[in-house]
């Protein structure tokens, strides 16, 4: 942690989504930066999606494919003219295939300050059964 505190953040361009079926819709799609970590009980995903409000965020888990998509509401007023533009806004889209079995009923999603925190609890493993062998 002490290392990351002294470090300066480097500017990285937003990554546009390359070649996906979603591209048929109008607008620019970006790949949000994510952190994914897992503990024994759950898989946690953190994604940077600045400008997305909960109403415009879609999280979908189907057949082990997790899809996150969100739309950024245009906040510029109609009378504003561009002076200097360094970043573009658009939609966010990213898919993940999950290898772990997730307990779908306990998925928890929070959106704070433009960061999505998605907790995906793993299904509790069946307790091992001991099989006794009868002789006879």
């Amino acid at each position: 942690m002490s290392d990351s505190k002294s470090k300066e953040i480097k500017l990285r361009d937003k990554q546009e989504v390359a070649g996906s079926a979603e591209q048929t819709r109008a607008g620019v799609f970006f790949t949000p930066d994510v952190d994914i970590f897992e503990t024994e009980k759950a898989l946690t995903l953190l994604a940077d999606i600045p400008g997305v409000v909960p109403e415009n965020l879609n999280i979908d888990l189907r057949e082990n494919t997790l899809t996150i998509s969100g739309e950024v509401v245009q906040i510029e007023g109609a009378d504003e003219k561009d002076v200097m533009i360094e970043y573009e806004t658009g939609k966010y889209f990213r898919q993940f295939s999950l290898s772990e079995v997730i307990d779908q009923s306990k998925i928890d999603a929070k959106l704070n300050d433009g960061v999505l925190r998605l907790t995906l609890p793993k299904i509790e493993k069946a307790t091992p059964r001991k099989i006794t062998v009868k002789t006879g």
Partner: protein
Amino acid sequence: MIYRRMFGLPDWQLRDRFHELEQMRRQMDRLFGALTDGSTKKTGSGVFPAINLTESMDNYYLRAELSGVKAEDLDIQTTGKNISISGERKIFDVESNAKYHRRERDAGKFSRIVGLPDYVDSDAVEASLINGILTVVIPKKENAKPRQISIK
């Protein structure tokens, strides 16, 4: 490839074949980059955070995407024509027994200064941080506002 010819690296045969492929890929990227750069109106300073500056009749609007940055970790100052934005992005969610699959989000400090086209009315500047987007509204000074001149 040009590099190798120029400097005559003796160990080229031993090099991983993938190295050459990688070099080719980079050259292609550069080529395509040069082709597409002219068509976008996006400019860059190479400093975090990226900033969009727009203007209306009365105000300048400065916006930056700062997801995960708390308002108390942000410092905005104005002097003359300049506005400086500095702060720190902290990532708290490090659990001791967590194993990472991906780690793409950066934490760290940042500071940037942006020169505005006009002098700033420092007292009237307002900033807000909503959904990870910083918006600074900078009212134009009276003499900087466009004025309609009527012809008699």
